[in-house]
């Protein structure tokens, strides 16, 4: 019997993302879809959506989205896949609804949801309205992100599923040569332990807490070092309405570093924002990855993922997407996080004991290669393509009911507070029950 293939219309943005991790996630997801296209079940059609064209259309009505909708119809795609967080699917859906008429209900719609879900509640609420009763699904990158998104779903069966973001495991893999070169450049001997944090240097990433812990740890091992690789940002905490001006966090961190005794300060290395190749080498040079992030967009954790791909052991907060690594068998330890009316709090006792143990235990070369290979089997580009395949098959789609009033309420409220905050972000500290 001849197999009918689904024709996937995939929407991508030509622009680099504002979020560093998304500049890895987007291209990696594209590669996973390119692999899927080799499968007999799928063919693909790619659509590039320009932000400037979108803005111009919204301002003066250039007809950009109508033209795009007509292109979609001409291409005879059966499924619309939104994999890039920079694209607002709403004007595309509305234009397609207008152009396709009754045919609109024949499409299947798939959205890769990112950590910025709660930053655009109105958009997602409206998408839910437009697609009410149609076949759609929302793919989240971790169990807890699924818990958060499904919290806002309207009754019935959840339209969410989980598939991790793919990691470029070819680039981020342990290299003995890179380890030697980077450590030589930083002036380390092989027996010295290097702790590493990568990602934005930002208020909610817990950098100052990490430095305070390091200050304590160096009393136990004076040869210990800490490397921080990433750019400063001035985001504050958007979800909580916490704002900070440009460069404030730089000075706050600088003040912290300046207050340290010399013997501690000189063991902390600020590496700045590194290109991927250099970052990969730094992961090889390090011995333990630590992230105490409580960032509200931590739906997955691309930086820890790249660290694990390089065979590094890790200590992470039990927060958001970070928890999925542990449950997927990655060798990492989690620091419990609690959520009370006073806010988010780390379990300091567990954190200390994990760090104390973490700096004593180091992976050898073979162990690191083994961990990296195991990781690639679950999170590599090919592995993720395999995981996505059953989620994209036509029979896996069901009619959705959209999102409920609480998402609409969030869009009006802007900033999450009180019990509502705990209801939503409680999903980031506990595993979903379903």
């Amino acid at each position: 019997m001849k197999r009918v293939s689904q024709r996937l219309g995939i929407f991508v943005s030509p622009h680099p993302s504002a979020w560093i991790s998304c500049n890895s996630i987007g291209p990696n997801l594209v590669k996973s879809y390119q692999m899927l296209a080799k499968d007999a079940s799928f063919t693909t059609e790619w659509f590039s959506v320009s932000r400037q064209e979108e803005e111009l259309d919204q301002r003066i009505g250039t007809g950009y989205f109508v033209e795009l909708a007509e292109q979609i119809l001409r291409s005879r795609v059966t499924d619309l896949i939104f994999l890039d967080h920079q694209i607002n699917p709403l004007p595309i859906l509305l234009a397609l609804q207008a152009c396709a008429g009754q045919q609109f209900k024949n499409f299947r719609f798939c959205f890769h949801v990112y950590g910025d879900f709660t930053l655009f509640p109105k958009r997602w609420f409206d998408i839910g309205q437009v697609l009410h009763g149609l076949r759609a699904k929302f793919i989240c990158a971790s169990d807890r992100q699924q818990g958060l998104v499904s919290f806002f779903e309207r009754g019935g069966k959840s339209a969410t599923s989980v598939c991790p973001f793919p990691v470029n495991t070819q680039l981020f893999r342990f290299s003995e040569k890179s380890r030697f070169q980077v450590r030589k450049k930083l002036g380390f001997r092989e027996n010295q332990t290097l702790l590493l944090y990568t990602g934005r240097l930002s208020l909610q990433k817990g950098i100052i807490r990490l430095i305070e812990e390091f200050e304590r740890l160096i009393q136990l091992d004076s040869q210990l070092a800490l490397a921080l690789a990433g750019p400063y940002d001035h985001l504050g905490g958007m979800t909580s309405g916490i704002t900070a001006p440009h460069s404030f966090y730089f000075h706050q961190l600088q003040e912290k570093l300046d207050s340290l005794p010399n013997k501690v300060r000189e063991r902390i290395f600020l590496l700045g924002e590194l290109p991927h190749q250099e970052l990969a080498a730094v992961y090889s040079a390090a011995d333990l990855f630590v992230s105490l992030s409580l960032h509200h967009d931590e739906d997955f954790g691309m930086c820890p993922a790249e660290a694990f791909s390089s065979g590094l052991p890790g200590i992470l907060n039990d927060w958001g997407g970070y928890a999925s690594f542990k449950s997927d068998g990655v060798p990492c330890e989690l620091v419990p996080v609690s959520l009370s009316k006073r806010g988010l709090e780390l379990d300091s006792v567990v954190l200390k004991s994990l760090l104390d143990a973490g700096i004593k235990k180091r992976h050898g070369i073979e162990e690191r290669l083994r961990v990296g290979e195991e990781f690639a089997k679950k999170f590599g580009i090919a592995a993720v393509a395999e995981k996505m395949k059953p989620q994209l098959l036509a029979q896996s789609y069901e009619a959705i009911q959209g999102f409920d009033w609480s998402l609409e309420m969030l869009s009006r409220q802007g900033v999450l507070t009180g019990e509502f905050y705990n209801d939503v972000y409680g999903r980031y500290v506990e595993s979903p029950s379903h």
Partner: protein
Amino acid sequence: MSMDDMLNLRRTETENWLLTEFYCNTLLAKGDKGPASESATGVLWPFLNPYYSPLNPIYTPVYQTLCAQGLRPLNEKQLPVWMLRDGAVPLTWFFSRHQPDSVEGQILVHADLQHLVPENWAEKVASYRHRTPANDIESLFMAGPVNERTTSIDELEEKLNSIEAVLGKKKMAAMSVRLYCPMRDPSDSYPARYMQKIYSAFKRVTALDWFDVENIGSLKNVGFVELNSGWLFKDSYVQHHVLSRGATLLVQKESSRKKRVQSVPLSRYHSVDIEPLTTRSAAVSEKDRRLEKFFIQNARLRDDEDAAWEPWPKWHERWCRAMLKQKKRS
């Protein structure tokens, strides 16, 4: 409970974040909207946006507002310094309206404008100049609000010549350029003529919007050129942002190492050198009648809604130019 107990209270991470916000708000000059009216701020957005530094970067009208509101302008956690971001016009205005004893702390003015500081202010004022890493330049980033109040085509030609002097003709022609030039007042052919000059000087130009600029990645090995005459502002938010991403000021005047007093970081990559004044103006300190008349007339015009779109009247700009020319000659 003692103060020590209060400070040692165990706090949740959320409480730490909120404290950070509280702390930075107490340090920030509130209502920093730039040196002119709301509409002028709109024309120059985001060049006049505030940023944080212990040197208290500020525009003088905000400082005046703070004083008028009876707020204590300095916070004990900060250095007793005001780093004035103003260009020549608001700076002359400020010095003509205030006496040195009315200002708490030291004033820093941009080194290019130090000749505008009156004699009687000399002890209270030092100069600052931005310092960036001396990296190889592989591409350029140019930014400035394109309107006649802030830029001129003659100056652009001078800037292009100075770029050529730094890079050489061949390298300059091959350079790729990222350009951020918001045009909010395209009422005549000026912006078109201005942009035509840029596009004819470089073959590979990519125009960016603010979203692109704000979210730009590392700018190591990128030379920055600001298209700003310095009449209205001298230290812009866009320049601060771009330099904080690692860009190098392409035309960088060196501070004299002998005289440099202090270098204060503004970001991971760039800093300001602070040094004593080397030249001062006699002209402004004379406070002649003509100047006083100009300022009074200026103040009246600024209150006029019809003229509000224009940050400063053109005659004031002409007067400043004439004054500077006169000084150069002398």
